[in-house]
């Protein structure tokens, strides 16, 4: 079930909220939490009921592994606690590895050694990367003594809570479980509900209008026929379109998740903070998919030694972290290259900082603009590998971006074939396979302006909280809710008019 579907918006969400607040109103907090957990599991099972068993088993085993670790720690049996941790980590990684990476490694082995062995198609359970990472963090923290005792109900809700279950944000138990156990969560708060509905509407707008609006210009470039090389105009148009589609799609999803949680008084961590405004690649990663960056930093980069073992080791740690971060997104060499590129970008940035940047000196306005543009170009170039279905396809697009096949029109038109378009300029444009006309570039310019110059969702909502009188006058808040309900309906109708539109990060 997608957040942007009629089923979710008009049936699942109202039913879940009514049930939750009804039980909360009766002061049955445990039941209310159970209702949310049940609804979340139903939400997950709606996609494929078979994988509810996988999710349920994962939750039960990880919860009891966590409890065992806590118990052994409390009795001083650290060795046993470590053994349970290692066993549980192997179990989690093996499950993830089977569903997500088995085909990749078997095919790679076949390519390298000619084993001739292939696995059948393995369906990737939705959200497996997210709920596996969430629980790995829980186990590691339990071993490090950072986890207080918790109830199974809260733990289940922490893992399954429907706003984050499928595509994040990647949650940390320390910020979530206390929220499920406090009494304030279980009462209707108009201000939180309105903030949540606002986030939901902004996220839905980003997905339905912005991301899906520019999406048609992406496919023609990344799925182009290799027999007809892309010009620079076409390639850049498609790659920029994807750069913007991905941002508005994923940040739209994250806004919706934050909003849905906030409606039930739960604060989810923010996942985006205008990443394309970043002035360097390190800042980009502090603004893009922030909860994954945090996870990779806390549970991979720092355990590897972080920056505590000298510059060379730091660079290596950065590269390893980003390589694995790339592989987390998908089992394919394109994701490995994407991760490696970002690892190299981060290393170069570290070296640059060490050699050229004087501490305490902030860059000039021009310097910031140049840095922002350069960072953006690096990110855009890397997205080519993130989106392409193969390395060959990625290089095909890169060649186009470099103008190796012509800038506006293909070089091959310079011969006899080129004369056809010369008589009719309109025909000449129409003959470009992957060029969406002025409309495509208008989309790109407008969305770039939004990404670079407009306030992001959290800034908009913060303004609503601090400046608007709505929250202080209840009737205005109810009025705003009525208005937002109509907006959500209109956006859902637009979405339905185009058929089903999945979120890109559902694939990861």
């Amino acid at each position: 079930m997608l957040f942007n579907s009629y089923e979710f918006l008009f049936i699942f969400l109202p039913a879940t909220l009514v049930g939750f607040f009804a039980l909360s109103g009766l002061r049955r907090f445990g039941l209310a939490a159970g209702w949310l957990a049940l609804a979340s599991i139903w939400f997950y099972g709606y996609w494929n009921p078979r994988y509810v068993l996988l999710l349920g088993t994962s939750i039960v085993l990880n919860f009891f592994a966590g409890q065992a670790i806590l118990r052994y720690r409390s009795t001083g049996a650290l060795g046993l606690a470590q053994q349970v941790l290692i066993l549980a980590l192997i179990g989690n990684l093996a499950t993830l590895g089977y569903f997500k990476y088995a085909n990749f490694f078997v095919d790679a082995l076949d390519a390298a050694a000619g084993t001739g062995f292939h696995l059948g198609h393995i369906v990737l359970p939705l959200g497996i990367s997210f709920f596996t990472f969430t629980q790995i963090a829980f186990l590691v923290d339990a071993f490090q003594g950072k986890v207080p005792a918790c109830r199974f109900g809260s733990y289940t809700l922490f893992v399954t809570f429907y706003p984050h279950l499928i595509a994040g944000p990647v949650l940390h138990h320390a910020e979530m479980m206390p929220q499920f156990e406090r009494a304030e969560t279980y009462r209707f708060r108009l201000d939180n509900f309105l903030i949540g509905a606002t986030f939901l509407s902004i996220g839905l707008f980003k997905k339905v209008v912005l991301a899906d609006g520019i999406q048609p210009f992406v496919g023609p470039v990344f799925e182009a026929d290799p027999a007809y090389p892309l010009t620079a105009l076409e390639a850049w148009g498609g790659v920029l379109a994807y750069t913007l589609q991905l941002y508005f799609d994923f940040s739209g999803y994250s806004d919706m998740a934050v909003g849905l949680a906030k409606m039930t008084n739960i604060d989810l961590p923010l996942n985006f903070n205008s990443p394309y405004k970043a002035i360097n690649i390190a800042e980009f990663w502090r603004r893009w998919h922030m909860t994954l960056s945090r996870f990779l930093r806390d549970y991979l980069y720092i355990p590897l030694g972080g920056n505590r073992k000298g510059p060379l080791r730091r660079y290596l740690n950065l590269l390893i972290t980003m390589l694995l971060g790339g592989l987390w997104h998908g089992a394919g060499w394109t994701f490995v290259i994407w991760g490696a590129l970002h690892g190299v970008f981060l290393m170069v940035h570290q070296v640059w900082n060490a050699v050229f940047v004087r501490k305490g000196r902030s860059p000039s306005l021009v310097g910031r603009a140049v840095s922002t543009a350069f960072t953006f170009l690096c990110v855009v170039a890397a997205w080519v590998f993130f989106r392409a279905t193969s390395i060959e396809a990625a290089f095909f697009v890169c060649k186009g971006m470099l103008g190796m096949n012509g800038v506006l029109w293909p070089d091959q038109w310079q011969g006899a074939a080129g004369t056809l378009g010369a008589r009719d300029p309109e025909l000449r444009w129409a003959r470009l396979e992957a060029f969406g006309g002025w409309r495509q570039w208008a989309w790109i310019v407008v969305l770039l302006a939004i990404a670079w110059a407009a306030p992001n969702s959290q800034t908009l909502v913060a303004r609503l909280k601090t400046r608007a009188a709505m929250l202080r006058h209840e009737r205005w808040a109810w009025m705003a809710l009525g208005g937002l309900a109509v907006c959500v309906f209109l956006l859902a109708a637009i979405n339905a008019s185009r058929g089903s539109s999945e979120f890109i990060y559902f694939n990861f």
Partner: protein
Amino acid sequence: MGTLLSRLIWVAAGALSVLIAAELVLRALPVSMGLYRTDQYDRWPLQSSESRLAYTYSSSWALRNAHRGVTNNYGHIAPFDFRKGGKPVIVIGDSYVESLMNDYADTLQAQLADKLGRRDSVYGLGVSGLSASDYLVLSSQARDEFAPVAAVFVITDGDIAESLLPSPGSRFIVLDAAGPRLDYLPLRGESLAKRIRKVVGESSLYRYLQVNLRFSPADILGMFRPASAALQGVGTPPMGEELDRQRRVADFFLGELPTALALAPECIVLLMDSDRHAIYKPAAATPRKDDPSTRLYVIERARALGIKVSDLDPVFRDRYARDRMKFDHWPNDRHWNRLGHAIAATEAYRLLSEPDAQGRAACLAGPGAAR
């Protein structure tokens, strides 16, 4: 209770405010307005919609490909009035001929008229949703009204199969023991949709939802119902009996055409459209409503009866192989674009210009079509 009511009133006020704002914004935009079908039921589809009706066309949520215009005296899309007894070449078809998504000058009828040298020598009689059964009725209506010298039919997928489906206000073909015949399912008063449209039809928001987004409350209500058998069957190829029914429809349609038009078979041209998306990308091929064998059957039977046929599939394929130009508003809209219409016009002109036994293009000799 008072508090609850007061809250509901404020929620409703908020909702209404946004609805009004949306209405104001959409009024400034080219929201599509479907053509209102004429109330002269006995004259439809010759009189297709109301005369002198200003319309706006745009497709999808993003209001793509906007066009505005005014219908002519017969409610068709043309920048001139049709003349009774005008002896034109008539072009009959569904939304492909109606062609709301193109400028009139880009349409088959306009480009064919260019070749004939007179703008009003070709009348485009296209109405969205028509099928072979309606074409027969429209042919006889046009015969009585305009005395055409030649007729061109654009045959698209579904024209045969859909003519078997009873639809209120349309003719359909009945296949029973007495043989194939045309039947009519009368409109029972005004439909609810039409009554609603009369009340809120001027609302741009309503038109945006209904026409551009194709929103229907049934879409939401439908979530509570299992998919109907009819829907589940969409896209499955007709087998056995259905194939036979389609062939009988084709026989009936082709056999009746010369009489309905009062034209010699050689002055009738069928332009057989094809699945163009499959030409661009085999993976983009779509399930056909008319079985592919039915399509071939129509071509063979028509030629056997002396009717001229252009199978546009190889024509489109050759052209695409040459310069990879697309013939429609790919990928959003399957209707022909200027190039698709140009190719159809060229084919129609080629066939109509073919000399007869006396070595002259007899079909184009009438006053309306003369150079």
